[in-house]
């Protein structure tokens, strides 16, 4: 590993900004968040960043390192610097910029509130019992740390700015966890299609590529949800059978 690296960090806010370069001394095991802390401590105390656990579990330190969304606390510097020792660190691009590396991700919390919560089927005997084979799918989704890396990489939100139409991959994961829950009784398919906008996802899988919890967002959450929505709205034979048999 090099003794020093050059961090090009974005400095600015919504009125404008620029990359500024800082030289940082390295040490074994150093992650990008360490480098940011070194800049804060020794060179420029006004550099703003958000972090909490430094253990890749709180989901606060999301940033874009060399153009791809990552957790700064999980990114070893030696995996990122180029031949000239440069690493570029920018704020996540999909959400309004507050300052430097800090963005306002509150849109996500509003989306979360609009999702119909779990409602246990009436008459389910207590204590509640569930078979492991029925809950393991949802368990994968419960690993989510709400870092919003998937939300920021999703081109529907990032490039097309369709926050008006699509909830984003993090909330497909959340809805999948609820919808696949063995005791849940809420019908979410129409909600998924209309309000959550599952059809906007074109399964290009960038969310799955960046998820630090390695959740198979597209394979295990979004595609199965798309199939469930197709059962309901896009399968003419199933729709006919439902109509003939009088089921809704």
């Amino acid at each position, binding site marked *: 590993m090099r003794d020093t690296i050059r961090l*090009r960090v*974005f400095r*600015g806010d*919504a*009125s*404008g*900004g*620029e*990359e*500024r*370069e800082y030289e940082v001394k390295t040490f074994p095991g150093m992650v990008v968040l360490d480098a940011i802390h070194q800049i804060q401590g020794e060179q420029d105390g006004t550099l703003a960043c958000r972090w909490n656990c430094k253990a890749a579990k709180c989901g606060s330190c999301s940033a*874009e390192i*060399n*153009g*791809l*969304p990552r957790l700064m606390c999980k990114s070893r510097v030696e995996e990122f610097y*180029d031949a000239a020792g440069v690493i570029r660190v*920018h*704020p996540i*691009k*999909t*959400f*309004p*910029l507050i300052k430097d590396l800090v*963005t306002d991700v509150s849109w996500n919390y509003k989306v979360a509130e609009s999702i119909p919560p779990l409602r246990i089927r009436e008459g389910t005997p207590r204590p509640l019992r569930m*078979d492991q*084979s*029925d809950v393991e799918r949802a368990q994968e989704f419960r690993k989510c740390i709400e870092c919003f890396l998937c939300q920021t990489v999703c*081109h*529907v939100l*990032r*490039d*097309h*700015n369709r926050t008006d*139409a*699509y909830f984003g991959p993090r909330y497909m994961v959340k809805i999948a966890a609820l919808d*696949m829950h*063995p005791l*849940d009784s809420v019908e979410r398919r129409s909600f998924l*299609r209309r309000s959550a906008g599952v*059809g*906007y*996802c*074109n*399964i*290009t*899988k*960038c969310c799955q590529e*960046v998820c630090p919890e390695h959740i198979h967002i597209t*394979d295990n959450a979004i*595609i*199965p949800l*798309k*199939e*469930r*929505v*197709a059962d309901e*709205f*896009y*399968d003419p034979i199933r729709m006919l059978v439902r109509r003939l048999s009088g089921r809704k």
Partner: protein
Amino acid sequence: MASYSARDVHEDRAPVGMGSRTDRWWIEPVLVILTLVSFSAYAMWRAFEGNYYDSLQALERGAREVPLLLSPFYSPPFHEWFPGFKERFAISPALFVLVFPLSFRATCYYCRRSYYRAFFWDPPACGLPEPGMAKRKRYTGESAWPFVLQNLHRYALYFILIVVAFHYKHLYDACFVMGDAGRHFGIGLGTMIMGLDAVLLSLYVFSCHSWRHLIGGGLNLLSSAPIRLRLWRIVSALNARHGLYFWLSLITVGLADLYVRLVASGIIADPRII
């Protein structure tokens, strides 16, 4: 070093293009384009050629013994069911056959991912700004015409299941040779290639996301259907490699057709193993 002012800002965000990737992200889309374009060109050429799809043709060209190989591009064998098809409609029966694998692959979740990236630049690679945003129509993805039709993938699956069955029938036929002594058992390189094609096509089809949903993914109480649960687990394991099977089966189906063409046109003789 990059900088921007409030003029470049959209909805108070930092501009998407600023500080974007400089790695070799373009390798994947280039490979996808090259493979898909060359395969399509080859398949179209073979379909319009309308010849050398049945190895028996080699007998007419003087071969003494040939394995019974039928090109996968001509399976199901419409040309046998409707003889004179080509003359009557002036198109190759292969075009009818190709509709099935083509619609299955074109609506395949994995294939969609690849061509939306490589051909539509939606996005070209993760985190990369999409080119020509100013001229693009408002994005609707698969929620509106025409891509909403991708939801019919399951119907393409139903048809491809029939095609898979035919591949096994042709594999069975490929275990025989035809010669002066009539039809008798015999395994050659052609049998192996047909076998590889049938197996890889099966892995591709049975790792399909719609199949996974049909088998058990649509159930919330999988524990109440133990057989479906077990099958769903197997399909889920296969599904993790769906993309790999997509490419492998694409290559082997082309290879199988090429092999049949070489044998049928008398360019090579099928080496017998047993």
